[in-house]
Protein backbone atom coordinates (compact mmCIF):
# COMPACT_ATOMS: atom_id res chain seq x y z
CA UNK A 1 0.00 0.00 0.00
CA UNK A 2 1.34 3.38 -0.93
CA UNK A 3 2.05 5.64 2.02
CA UNK A 4 0.18 8.93 2.02
CA UNK A 5 2.34 10.55 4.73
CA UNK A 6 4.73 13.34 3.77
CA UNK A 7 8.34 12.11 3.45
CA UNK A 8 10.50 13.16 6.43
CA UNK A 9 14.20 14.02 6.49
CA UNK A 10 16.27 11.19 7.96
CA UNK A 11 17.62 11.92 11.46
CA UNK A 12 21.21 10.90 10.99
CA UNK A 13 23.14 13.96 12.24
CA UNK A 14 25.06 13.14 15.45
CA UNK A 15 26.39 15.71 18.00
CA UNK A 16 29.75 15.91 16.19
CA UNK A 17 27.89 16.03 12.85
CA UNK A 18 25.78 18.94 14.12
CA UNK A 19 28.94 20.76 15.29
CA UNK A 20 30.78 20.14 12.02
CA UNK A 21 27.81 21.33 9.89
CA UNK A 22 27.88 24.59 11.78
CA UNK A 23 31.67 24.81 11.87
CA UNK A 24 32.12 24.21 8.15
CA UNK A 25 29.88 27.23 7.59
CA UNK A 26 30.81 29.67 10.40
CA UNK A 27 34.42 28.48 10.70
CA UNK A 28 35.17 29.61 7.15
CA UNK A 29 34.06 33.18 7.90
CA UNK A 30 37.24 34.18 9.76
CA UNK A 31 39.20 33.29 6.58
CA UNK A 32 37.23 36.06 4.84
CA UNK A 33 36.61 38.51 7.66
CA UNK A 34 40.09 38.84 9.20
CA UNK A 35 41.75 40.69 6.30
CA UNK A 36 38.76 42.97 5.68
CA UNK A 37 38.54 44.00 9.35
CA UNK A 38 42.31 44.54 9.68
CA UNK A 39 42.16 46.78 6.59
CA UNK A 40 39.23 48.80 7.92
CA UNK A 41 39.68 48.99 11.69
CA UNK A 42 43.52 48.87 11.89
CA UNK A 43 44.62 49.08 15.54
CA UNK A 44 41.10 48.54 16.85
CA UNK A 45 40.41 45.37 14.85
CA UNK A 46 40.26 43.27 18.02
CA UNK A 47 37.76 45.73 19.51
CA UNK A 48 35.64 45.47 16.34
CA UNK A 49 35.72 41.67 16.66
CA UNK A 50 34.91 41.97 20.37
CA UNK A 51 31.80 44.09 19.77
CA UNK A 52 30.58 41.88 16.90
CA UNK A 53 31.50 38.81 18.97
CA UNK A 54 29.35 39.87 21.94
CA UNK A 55 26.41 40.43 19.57
CA UNK A 56 27.16 37.05 17.99
CA UNK A 57 27.03 35.31 21.38
CA UNK A 58 23.53 36.78 21.89
CA UNK A 59 22.55 35.65 18.36
CA UNK A 60 23.96 32.20 19.01
CA UNK A 61 22.05 31.83 22.26
CA UNK A 62 18.83 32.97 20.56
CA UNK A 63 19.27 30.46 17.72
CA UNK A 64 20.12 27.72 20.21
CA UNK A 65 16.94 28.27 22.19
CA UNK A 66 14.74 28.56 19.09
CA UNK A 67 16.25 25.59 17.24
CA UNK A 68 16.00 23.37 20.35
CA UNK A 69 12.38 24.44 20.95
CA UNK A 70 11.26 24.29 17.30
CA UNK A 71 13.54 21.72 15.59
CA UNK A 72 12.37 22.21 12.01
CA UNK A 73 14.18 22.96 8.75
CA UNK A 74 13.73 26.59 7.72
CA UNK A 75 15.69 28.24 10.52
CA UNK A 76 15.26 31.97 11.10
CA UNK A 77 12.52 32.37 8.53
CA UNK A 78 10.33 29.80 10.35
CA UNK A 79 10.92 31.34 13.80
CA UNK A 80 10.09 34.84 12.53
CA UNK A 81 6.98 33.65 10.66
CA UNK A 82 5.76 31.87 13.79
CA UNK A 83 6.56 34.75 16.13
CA UNK A 84 5.79 37.84 14.07
CA UNK A 85 3.61 36.68 11.17
CA UNK A 86 3.90 35.97 7.47
CA UNK A 87 5.14 39.36 6.20
CA UNK A 88 8.04 39.52 8.64
CA UNK A 89 8.73 35.83 8.05
CA UNK A 90 9.07 36.66 4.37
CA UNK A 91 11.36 39.66 5.01
CA UNK A 92 13.64 37.59 7.29
CA UNK A 93 13.69 34.70 4.81
CA UNK A 94 14.35 37.06 1.89
CA UNK A 95 17.27 38.66 3.77
CA UNK A 96 18.66 35.18 4.49
CA UNK A 97 18.29 34.36 0.78
CA UNK A 98 20.36 37.46 -0.05
CA UNK A 99 23.00 36.22 2.38
CA UNK A 100 23.04 32.74 0.89
CA UNK A 101 23.47 34.06 -2.67
CA UNK A 102 26.29 36.34 -1.49
CA UNK A 103 27.70 33.39 0.45
CA UNK A 104 28.04 31.44 -2.82
CA UNK A 105 29.99 34.23 -4.57
CA UNK A 106 31.98 35.57 -1.62
CA UNK A 107 33.32 32.17 -0.57
CA UNK A 108 34.02 31.00 -4.14
CA UNK A 109 35.90 34.31 -4.67
CA UNK A 110 38.01 33.89 -1.51
CA UNK A 111 38.53 30.19 -2.30
CA UNK A 112 40.33 31.41 -5.44
CA UNK A 113 42.20 34.06 -3.38
CA UNK A 114 43.52 31.39 -0.99
CA UNK A 115 44.49 29.16 -3.92
CA UNK A 116 46.43 32.10 -5.39
CA UNK A 117 48.84 31.85 -2.45
CA UNK A 118 50.20 28.67 -4.06
CA UNK A 119 49.18 29.41 -7.68
CA UNK A 120 50.11 33.06 -8.39
CA UNK A 121 48.34 32.90 -11.78
CA UNK A 122 45.06 33.18 -9.81
CA UNK A 123 45.98 36.55 -8.24
CA UNK A 124 43.05 38.89 -8.92
CA UNK A 125 44.98 42.14 -9.34
CA UNK A 126 47.45 40.63 -11.85
CA UNK A 127 45.18 38.28 -13.80
CA UNK A 128 41.61 39.56 -13.23
CA UNK A 129 40.14 37.50 -16.08
CA UNK A 130 41.66 34.25 -14.79
CA UNK A 131 40.40 35.02 -11.27
CA UNK A 132 36.93 35.82 -12.59
CA UNK A 133 36.69 32.76 -14.85
CA UNK A 134 37.89 30.33 -12.15
CA UNK A 135 35.40 31.80 -9.64
CA UNK A 136 32.62 31.57 -12.24
CA UNK A 137 33.57 27.97 -13.02
CA UNK A 138 33.45 27.06 -9.32
CA UNK A 139 29.98 28.58 -8.92
CA UNK A 140 28.61 26.94 -12.08
CA UNK A 141 30.17 23.63 -11.00
CA UNK A 142 28.55 23.83 -7.55
CA UNK A 143 25.17 24.65 -9.12
CA UNK A 144 25.55 21.64 -11.43
CA UNK A 145 26.53 19.30 -8.57
CA UNK A 146 23.57 20.46 -6.48
CA UNK A 147 21.14 20.01 -9.38
CA UNK A 148 22.23 16.41 -9.89
CA UNK A 149 22.08 15.91 -6.12
CA UNK A 150 25.74 15.47 -5.18
CA UNK A 151 26.75 17.20 -1.96
CA UNK A 152 29.41 16.80 0.63
CA UNK A 153 28.64 14.25 3.32
CA UNK A 154 28.51 14.81 7.07
CA UNK A 155 31.62 12.60 7.35
CA UNK A 156 33.55 14.82 4.89
CA UNK A 157 32.45 17.95 6.77
CA UNK A 158 33.53 16.32 10.01
CA UNK A 159 37.03 15.49 8.71
CA UNK A 160 37.61 18.97 7.25
CA UNK A 161 36.26 20.63 10.42
CA UNK A 162 38.48 18.51 12.67
CA UNK A 163 41.55 19.25 10.53
CA UNK A 164 40.76 22.95 10.57
CA UNK A 165 40.21 23.12 14.35
CA UNK A 166 43.54 21.36 14.94
CA UNK A 167 45.31 23.52 12.35
CA UNK A 168 43.96 26.83 13.66
CA UNK A 169 44.77 25.79 17.23
CA UNK A 170 48.37 25.01 16.19
CA UNK A 171 48.70 28.36 14.37
CA UNK A 172 47.45 30.22 17.43
CA UNK A 173 49.54 28.21 19.91
CA UNK A 174 52.77 28.72 17.95
CA UNK A 175 51.83 32.32 17.23
CA UNK A 176 51.17 33.23 20.86
CA UNK A 177 54.19 31.28 22.11
CA UNK A 178 56.80 32.57 19.67
CA UNK A 179 55.55 35.68 17.86
CA UNK A 180 53.14 37.51 20.16
CA UNK A 181 54.37 40.63 21.96
CA UNK A 182 51.80 42.04 24.42
CA UNK A 183 53.45 45.45 24.49
CA UNK A 184 53.43 45.59 20.68
CA UNK A 185 49.67 44.94 20.79
CA UNK A 186 49.15 47.84 23.22
CA UNK A 187 51.44 50.06 21.14
CA UNK A 188 49.57 49.21 17.92
CA UNK A 189 46.21 49.87 19.54
CA UNK A 190 47.36 53.22 20.89
CA UNK A 191 49.23 54.44 17.81
CA UNK A 192 46.95 53.07 15.07
CA UNK A 193 43.52 53.61 16.60
CA UNK A 194 41.13 54.31 13.69
CA UNK A 195 38.65 57.14 13.20
CA UNK A 196 35.07 56.49 14.47
CA UNK A 197 33.98 56.00 10.83
CA UNK A 198 36.65 53.35 10.22
CA UNK A 199 35.81 51.64 13.52
CA UNK A 200 32.12 51.46 12.54
CA UNK A 201 33.15 50.10 9.12
CA UNK A 202 35.37 47.49 10.77
CA UNK A 203 32.66 46.45 13.24
CA UNK A 204 30.08 46.05 10.47
CA UNK A 205 32.58 43.87 8.58
CA UNK A 206 33.47 41.88 11.72
CA UNK A 207 29.93 40.52 11.91
CA UNK A 208 30.55 38.57 8.68
CA UNK A 209 33.02 36.44 10.66
CA UNK A 210 30.11 35.11 12.67
CA UNK A 211 27.47 34.40 9.99
CA UNK A 212 26.25 30.87 9.46
CA UNK A 213 24.59 29.72 12.69
CA UNK A 214 21.58 29.16 10.43
CA UNK A 215 23.23 25.86 9.47
CA UNK A 216 22.68 24.30 12.90
CA UNK A 217 19.01 25.28 12.99
CA UNK A 218 18.62 24.24 9.34
CA UNK A 219 20.01 20.81 10.17
CA UNK A 220 17.78 20.60 13.27
CA UNK A 221 15.24 18.47 11.43
CA UNK A 222 17.96 15.94 10.61
CA UNK A 223 19.58 15.94 14.09
CA UNK A 224 19.09 13.09 16.55
CA UNK A 225 17.35 14.28 19.78
CA UNK A 226 17.70 17.94 18.68
CA UNK A 227 16.46 19.49 21.93
CA UNK A 228 19.35 17.83 23.81
CA UNK A 229 22.05 17.86 21.15
CA UNK A 230 21.66 21.37 19.68
CA UNK A 231 22.36 23.31 22.92
CA UNK A 232 25.52 21.24 23.54
CA UNK A 233 26.93 21.68 20.05
CA UNK A 234 25.80 25.28 19.61
CA UNK A 235 27.47 26.52 22.79
CA UNK A 236 30.72 24.74 21.89
CA UNK A 237 30.51 26.25 18.39
CA UNK A 238 29.74 29.77 19.64
CA UNK A 239 32.69 29.74 22.05
CA UNK A 240 35.09 28.13 19.55
CA UNK A 241 34.37 30.73 16.85
CA UNK A 242 34.55 33.60 19.36
CA UNK A 243 37.92 32.36 20.65
CA UNK A 244 39.35 32.02 17.13
CA UNK A 245 38.14 35.48 16.07
CA UNK A 246 39.49 37.25 19.18
CA UNK A 247 42.73 35.26 19.18
CA UNK A 248 43.46 35.89 15.48
CA UNK A 249 42.78 39.62 15.74
CA UNK A 250 44.92 40.02 18.87
CA UNK A 251 47.72 37.97 17.33
CA UNK A 252 47.61 39.90 14.04
CA UNK A 253 47.95 43.23 15.85
CA UNK A 254 50.65 42.15 18.28
CA UNK A 255 52.79 39.68 16.34
CA UNK A 256 56.42 39.99 15.39
CA UNK A 257 56.49 38.48 11.87
CA UNK A 258 58.84 35.55 11.39
CA UNK A 259 60.31 37.14 8.26
CA UNK A 260 60.63 40.94 8.12
CA UNK A 261 57.89 42.57 6.02
CA UNK A 262 58.66 45.76 4.13
CA UNK A 263 56.56 48.25 2.17
CA UNK A 264 57.19 49.38 -1.41
CA UNK A 265 59.87 51.82 -0.20
CA UNK A 266 61.69 49.08 1.74
CA UNK A 267 60.62 50.30 5.22
CA UNK A 268 59.71 47.58 7.73
CA UNK A 269 56.00 47.38 8.53
CA UNK A 270 53.87 45.47 11.01
CA UNK A 271 51.92 42.42 9.90
CA UNK A 272 48.47 44.07 9.91
CA UNK A 273 49.76 46.93 7.70
CA UNK A 274 49.88 44.67 4.62
CA UNK A 275 46.05 44.68 4.40
CA UNK A 276 44.83 48.28 3.84
CA UNK A 277 44.33 49.00 0.11
CA UNK A 278 45.39 45.51 -0.90
CA UNK A 279 42.47 43.33 -2.01
CA UNK A 280 44.71 40.37 -2.81
CA UNK A 281 46.05 40.19 0.75
CA UNK A 282 42.62 40.81 2.32
CA UNK A 283 41.28 37.73 0.56
CA UNK A 284 43.86 35.34 2.09
CA UNK A 285 44.62 36.81 5.52
CA UNK A 286 44.73 33.57 7.52
CA UNK A 287 47.17 31.97 5.06
CA UNK A 288 49.44 35.03 5.27
CA UNK A 289 49.29 35.05 9.07
CA UNK A 290 50.01 31.31 9.24
CA UNK A 291 53.08 31.71 7.03
CA UNK A 292 54.47 34.36 9.44
CA UNK A 293 54.20 32.16 12.54
CA UNK A 294 57.69 31.02 13.61
CA UNK A 295 58.61 27.36 12.91
CA UNK A 296 55.06 26.15 12.26
CA UNK A 297 54.77 28.67 9.41
CA UNK A 298 57.21 26.61 7.32
CA UNK A 299 54.59 23.84 7.04
CA UNK A 300 51.51 26.04 7.38
CA UNK A 301 52.52 28.15 4.36
CA UNK A 302 51.85 25.11 2.16
CA UNK A 303 48.79 23.47 3.62
CA UNK A 304 46.76 26.36 5.14
CA UNK A 305 45.91 27.85 1.70
CA UNK A 306 44.65 24.42 0.59
CA UNK A 307 42.71 23.76 3.80
CA UNK A 308 41.28 27.29 3.67
CA UNK A 309 40.27 26.88 0.02
CA UNK A 310 38.51 23.56 0.77
CA UNK A 311 36.67 25.00 3.78
CA UNK A 312 35.63 28.05 1.75
CA UNK A 313 34.40 25.87 -1.10
CA UNK A 314 32.28 23.85 1.36
CA UNK A 315 30.88 27.12 2.66
CA UNK A 316 30.13 28.28 -0.88
CA UNK A 317 28.34 24.99 -1.49
CA UNK A 318 26.30 25.45 1.69
CA UNK A 319 25.12 28.74 0.12
CA UNK A 320 23.86 26.91 -3.00
CA UNK A 321 22.23 24.19 -0.91
CA UNK A 322 20.90 26.55 1.79
CA UNK A 323 19.31 29.01 -0.64
CA UNK A 324 17.35 26.23 -2.34
CA UNK A 325 16.28 24.82 1.06
CA UNK A 326 15.12 28.23 2.31
CA UNK A 327 13.27 28.92 -0.95
CA UNK A 328 11.64 25.48 -0.67
CA UNK A 329 10.60 26.13 2.97
CA UNK A 330 9.27 29.62 2.11
CA UNK A 331 7.36 28.23 -0.84
CA UNK A 332 5.83 25.52 1.39
CA UNK A 333 4.64 28.30 3.72
CA UNK A 334 3.08 30.26 0.80
CA UNK A 335 5.67 33.02 1.11
CA UNK A 336 7.13 32.31 -2.34
CA UNK A 337 5.49 30.89 -5.51
CA UNK A 338 5.10 27.11 -5.64
CA UNK A 339 7.54 26.92 -8.56
CA UNK A 340 10.34 26.90 -5.96
CA UNK A 341 8.99 23.65 -4.53
CA UNK A 342 9.21 21.81 -7.84
CA UNK A 343 11.73 19.02 -7.91
CA UNK A 344 13.59 17.76 -10.95
CA UNK A 345 11.90 14.67 -12.40
CA UNK A 346 15.12 12.70 -12.67
CA UNK A 347 17.39 14.03 -9.93
CA UNK A 348 14.69 14.75 -7.27
CA UNK A 349 16.32 18.08 -6.33
CA UNK A 350 14.74 21.60 -6.24
CA UNK A 351 16.47 22.41 -9.53
CA UNK A 352 14.55 25.63 -10.25
CA UNK A 353 15.45 27.10 -6.85
CA UNK A 354 19.09 26.06 -7.22
CA UNK A 355 19.42 27.56 -10.72
CA UNK A 356 17.50 30.76 -9.85
CA UNK A 357 19.53 31.66 -6.77
CA UNK A 358 22.75 30.35 -8.29
CA UNK A 359 22.03 32.69 -11.22
CA UNK A 360 21.63 35.63 -8.82
CA UNK A 361 25.00 34.70 -7.30
CA UNK A 362 26.55 34.86 -10.78
CA UNK A 363 25.02 38.32 -11.33
CA UNK A 364 26.57 39.44 -8.04
CA UNK A 365 29.92 38.10 -9.20
CA UNK A 366 29.63 40.07 -12.46
CA UNK A 367 28.84 43.25 -10.55
CA UNK A 368 31.74 42.72 -8.14
CA UNK A 369 34.29 41.82 -10.80
CA UNK A 370 33.20 44.18 -13.60
CA UNK A 371 35.54 47.15 -12.84
CA UNK A 372 38.58 44.87 -12.69
CA UNK A 373 37.63 43.32 -16.06
CA UNK A 374 36.70 46.62 -17.71
CA UNK A 375 38.67 49.51 -16.12
CA UNK A 376 36.45 52.07 -17.89
CA UNK A 377 33.63 51.10 -15.51
CA UNK A 378 35.67 52.27 -12.54
CA UNK A 379 34.56 55.89 -13.04
CA UNK A 380 30.92 54.85 -12.53
CA UNK A 381 31.81 52.87 -9.40
CA UNK A 382 33.95 55.76 -8.14
CA UNK A 383 31.10 58.21 -8.61
CA UNK A 384 28.25 56.18 -7.15
CA UNK A 385 29.82 53.54 -4.87
CA UNK A 386 33.02 55.16 -3.53
CA UNK A 387 35.13 52.67 -5.52
CA UNK A 388 33.59 49.72 -3.72
CA UNK A 389 34.15 46.65 -5.87
CA UNK A 390 35.21 43.04 -5.53
CA UNK A 391 35.46 41.71 -2.00
CA UNK A 392 34.21 45.00 -0.45
CA UNK A 393 31.00 44.88 -2.48
CA UNK A 394 30.28 41.26 -1.52
CA UNK A 395 31.14 41.83 2.15
CA UNK A 396 28.84 44.90 2.28
CA UNK A 397 25.81 42.98 1.14
CA UNK A 398 26.68 40.00 3.33
CA UNK A 399 26.77 42.23 6.43
CA UNK A 400 23.48 43.89 5.45
CA UNK A 401 21.62 40.60 4.93
CA UNK A 402 22.94 39.09 8.16
CA UNK A 403 22.16 42.14 10.31
CA UNK A 404 18.62 42.38 8.88
CA UNK A 405 17.70 38.73 9.39
CA UNK A 406 19.27 38.54 12.87
CA UNK A 407 17.33 41.65 13.97
CA UNK A 408 14.08 39.85 13.18
CA UNK A 409 15.23 36.66 14.92
CA UNK A 410 15.68 38.58 18.20
CA UNK A 411 12.19 40.06 17.85
CA UNK A 412 10.81 36.59 17.07
CA UNK A 413 12.45 35.17 20.20
CA UNK A 414 10.84 37.86 22.38
CA UNK A 415 7.45 37.37 20.64
CA UNK A 416 7.56 33.57 20.98
CA UNK A 417 8.49 33.75 24.67
CA UNK A 418 5.35 35.86 25.23
CA UNK A 419 2.99 34.19 22.72
CA UNK A 420 4.03 30.59 23.23
CA UNK A 421 5.05 30.13 26.88
CA UNK A 422 3.63 26.60 26.93
CA UNK A 423 6.27 25.06 24.63
CA UNK A 424 8.89 23.33 26.79
CA UNK A 425 12.29 24.94 26.39
CA UNK A 426 15.07 22.51 27.19
CA UNK A 427 17.56 25.36 26.72
CA UNK A 428 16.63 28.86 27.81
CA UNK A 429 18.77 31.99 27.49
CA UNK A 430 19.72 33.16 31.00
CA UNK A 431 18.67 36.49 32.60
CA UNK A 432 14.89 36.71 32.19
CA UNK A 433 12.18 38.86 33.72
CA UNK A 434 9.03 37.01 34.87
CA UNK A 435 5.90 38.51 33.27
CA UNK A 436 2.27 37.47 32.93
CA UNK A 437 0.77 37.55 29.43
CA UNK A 438 -2.77 36.46 28.52
CA UNK A 439 -3.19 34.62 31.83
CA UNK A 440 0.03 32.61 31.39
CA UNK A 441 3.37 32.94 33.14
CA UNK A 442 6.12 33.88 30.70
CA UNK A 443 9.71 35.10 30.83
CA UNK A 444 10.99 38.19 29.05
CA UNK A 445 14.53 37.64 27.68
CA UNK A 446 16.83 40.56 28.58
CA UNK A 447 19.69 39.13 26.50
CA UNK A 448 17.48 39.29 23.39
CA UNK A 449 16.99 43.03 23.96
CA UNK A 450 20.74 43.55 24.37
CA UNK A 451 21.38 41.49 21.23
CA UNK A 452 18.71 43.38 19.29
CA UNK A 453 20.22 46.75 20.21
CA UNK A 454 23.66 45.43 19.23
CA UNK A 455 22.64 44.02 15.87
CA UNK A 456 20.53 47.08 14.98
CA UNK A 457 23.55 49.27 15.72
CA UNK A 458 25.61 47.06 13.38
CA UNK A 459 22.85 47.42 10.75
CA UNK A 460 23.03 51.21 11.18
CA UNK A 461 26.87 51.08 10.88
CA UNK A 462 26.44 49.02 7.69
CA UNK A 463 23.99 51.49 6.15
CA UNK A 464 26.12 54.46 7.26
CA UNK A 465 29.51 53.18 6.09
CA UNK A 466 28.74 50.97 3.08
CA UNK A 467 27.53 52.77 -0.06
CA UNK A 468 26.59 49.48 -1.75
CA UNK A 469 24.94 48.04 1.34
CA UNK A 470 22.94 51.26 1.62
CA UNK A 471 21.63 51.01 -1.96
CA UNK A 472 21.58 47.37 -3.05
CA UNK A 473 20.50 45.86 0.29
CA UNK A 474 17.28 47.87 0.77
CA UNK A 475 16.59 47.57 -2.99
CA UNK A 476 16.70 43.76 -2.67
CA UNK A 477 14.25 43.93 0.24
CA UNK A 478 11.86 46.39 -1.46
CA UNK A 479 11.77 44.37 -4.71
CA UNK A 480 11.15 41.19 -2.71
CA UNK A 481 8.33 42.75 -0.68
CA UNK A 482 6.64 44.06 -3.86
CA UNK A 483 6.85 40.61 -5.46
CA UNK A 484 5.48 39.09 -2.22
CA UNK A 485 2.43 41.40 -2.29
CA UNK A 486 1.75 40.61 -5.96
CA UNK A 487 2.01 36.87 -5.26
CA UNK A 488 -0.20 36.96 -2.15
CA UNK A 489 -2.83 39.05 -3.96
CA UNK A 490 -2.74 36.65 -6.91
CA UNK A 491 -3.25 33.66 -4.57
CA UNK A 492 -6.01 35.42 -2.61
CA UNK A 493 -3.98 35.26 0.62
CA UNK A 494 -3.77 38.09 3.19
CA UNK A 495 -1.13 40.61 2.10
CA UNK A 496 -0.26 42.16 5.46
CA UNK A 497 -1.82 39.57 7.74
CA UNK A 498 -1.03 35.87 8.18
CA UNK A 499 -2.71 32.69 7.05
CA UNK A 500 -4.44 30.62 9.70
CA UNK A 501 -1.88 28.34 11.32
CA UNK A 502 -2.60 25.53 13.76
CA UNK A 503 0.54 26.14 15.83
CA UNK A 504 -0.44 23.83 18.71
CA UNK A 505 -1.04 20.91 16.38
CA UNK A 506 2.13 21.78 14.48
CA UNK A 507 4.20 21.84 17.70
CA UNK A 508 3.01 18.35 18.70
CA UNK A 509 3.95 17.09 15.22
CA UNK A 510 7.35 18.80 15.37
CA UNK A 511 8.23 17.25 18.73
CA UNK A 512 6.94 13.83 17.71
CA UNK A 513 8.94 13.89 14.49
CA UNK A 514 12.00 15.02 16.45
CA UNK A 515 11.70 11.97 18.70
CA UNK A 516 11.38 14.30 21.70
CA UNK A 517 8.43 12.37 23.14
CA UNK A 518 8.96 13.51 26.74
CA UNK A 519 8.84 17.13 25.60
CA UNK A 520 5.77 16.36 23.49
CA UNK A 521 3.98 14.90 26.54
CA UNK A 522 5.05 17.91 28.61
CA UNK A 523 3.70 20.27 25.94
CA UNK A 524 0.36 18.41 25.71
CA UNK A 525 0.06 18.50 29.52
CA UNK A 526 0.87 22.24 29.59
CA UNK A 527 -1.77 22.94 26.93
CA UNK A 528 -4.38 20.85 28.76
CA UNK A 529 -3.68 22.57 32.09
CA UNK A 530 -3.85 25.97 30.41
CA UNK A 531 -7.19 25.15 28.76
CA UNK A 532 -8.61 23.94 32.07
CA UNK A 533 -7.49 27.13 33.82
CA UNK A 534 -9.13 29.23 31.13
CA UNK A 535 -12.37 27.22 31.27
CA UNK A 536 -12.46 27.61 35.07
CA UNK A 537 -11.82 31.34 34.78
CA UNK A 538 -14.59 31.68 32.21
CA UNK A 539 -17.17 29.99 34.46
Amino acid at each position, binding site marked *: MASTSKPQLRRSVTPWGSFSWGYSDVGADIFVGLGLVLAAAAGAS*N*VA*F*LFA*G*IVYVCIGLAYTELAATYPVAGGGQYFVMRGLGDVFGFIAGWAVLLDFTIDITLFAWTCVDYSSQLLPVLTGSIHPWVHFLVTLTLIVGLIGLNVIGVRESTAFNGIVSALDVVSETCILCFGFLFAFR*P*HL*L*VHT*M*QMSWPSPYQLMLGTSLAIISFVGLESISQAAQETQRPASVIP*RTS*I*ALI*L*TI*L*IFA*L*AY*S*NLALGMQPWHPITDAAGHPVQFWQIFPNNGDNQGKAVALLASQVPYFGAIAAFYVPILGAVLLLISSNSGVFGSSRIAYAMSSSNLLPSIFQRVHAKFRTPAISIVTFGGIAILELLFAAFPSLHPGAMTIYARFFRNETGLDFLADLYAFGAATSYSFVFLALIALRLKDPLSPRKFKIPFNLPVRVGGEDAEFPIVAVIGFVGIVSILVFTLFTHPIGRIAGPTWLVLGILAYFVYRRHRGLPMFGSQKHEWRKAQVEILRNAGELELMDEYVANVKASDERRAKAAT
Partner: protein
Amino acid sequence: MLAVRTVLAIAMAVCGGVVIVRVAALGFRVESAPGLILGIAMIALGVHRLSLIAGIRRGMTR
Protein backbone atom coordinates in the same frame (compact mmCIF):
# COMPACT_ATOMS: atom_id res chain seq x y z
CA MET B 1 39.52 8.97 24.65
CA LEU B 2 37.51 10.55 27.43
CA ALA B 3 40.74 11.06 29.42
CA VAL B 4 42.35 12.88 26.46
CA ARG B 5 39.28 15.09 26.06
CA THR B 6 39.37 15.85 29.81
CA VAL B 7 43.04 16.86 29.60
CA LEU B 8 42.34 19.08 26.55
CA ALA B 9 39.39 20.75 28.30
CA ILE B 10 41.49 21.42 31.42
CA ALA B 11 44.33 22.74 29.21
CA MET B 12 41.89 25.09 27.49
CA ALA B 13 40.62 26.47 30.81
CA VAL B 14 44.18 26.85 32.17
CA CYS B 15 45.30 28.68 28.98
CA GLY B 16 42.32 31.00 29.43
CA GLY B 17 43.51 31.72 32.96
CA VAL B 18 47.04 32.42 31.72
CA VAL B 19 45.69 34.83 29.07
CA ILE B 20 43.69 36.72 31.71
CA VAL B 21 46.67 36.97 34.06
CA ARG B 22 49.01 38.16 31.29
CA VAL B 23 46.53 40.71 29.95
CA ALA B 24 45.66 41.91 33.44
CA ALA B 25 49.38 42.57 34.01
CA LEU B 26 49.14 45.28 31.32
CA GLY B 27 46.50 47.09 33.40
CA PHE B 28 42.73 47.32 33.03
CA ARG B 29 42.04 49.60 30.05
CA VAL B 30 40.36 49.47 26.63
CA GLU B 31 43.37 47.69 25.13
CA SER B 32 42.95 44.84 27.64
CA ALA B 33 39.25 44.19 26.97
CA PRO B 34 39.55 41.86 23.91
CA GLY B 35 42.23 39.80 25.69
CA LEU B 36 40.20 39.53 28.89
CA ILE B 37 37.09 38.39 26.99
CA LEU B 38 39.26 35.91 25.05
CA GLY B 39 40.48 34.44 28.35
CA ILE B 40 36.96 34.28 29.76
CA ALA B 41 35.68 32.56 26.57
CA MET B 42 38.50 29.98 26.80
CA ILE B 43 37.68 29.21 30.43
CA ALA B 44 33.96 28.99 29.54
CA LEU B 45 34.67 26.54 26.70
CA GLY B 46 36.90 24.43 28.95
CA VAL B 47 34.26 24.33 31.69
CA HIS B 48 31.52 23.58 29.14
CA ARG B 49 33.54 20.64 27.78
CA LEU B 50 34.24 19.40 31.32
CA SER B 51 30.55 19.54 32.23
CA LEU B 52 29.70 17.50 29.10
CA ILE B 53 32.41 14.95 29.96
CA ALA B 54 31.11 14.77 33.55
CA GLY B 55 27.62 14.14 32.12
CA ILE B 56 28.96 11.29 29.96
CA ARG B 57 30.82 9.77 32.93
CA ARG B 58 27.69 9.93 35.08
CA GLY B 59 25.82 8.13 32.28
CA MET B 60 28.56 5.46 32.11
CA THR B 61 28.63 4.77 35.84
CA ARG B 62 24.83 4.75 36.24
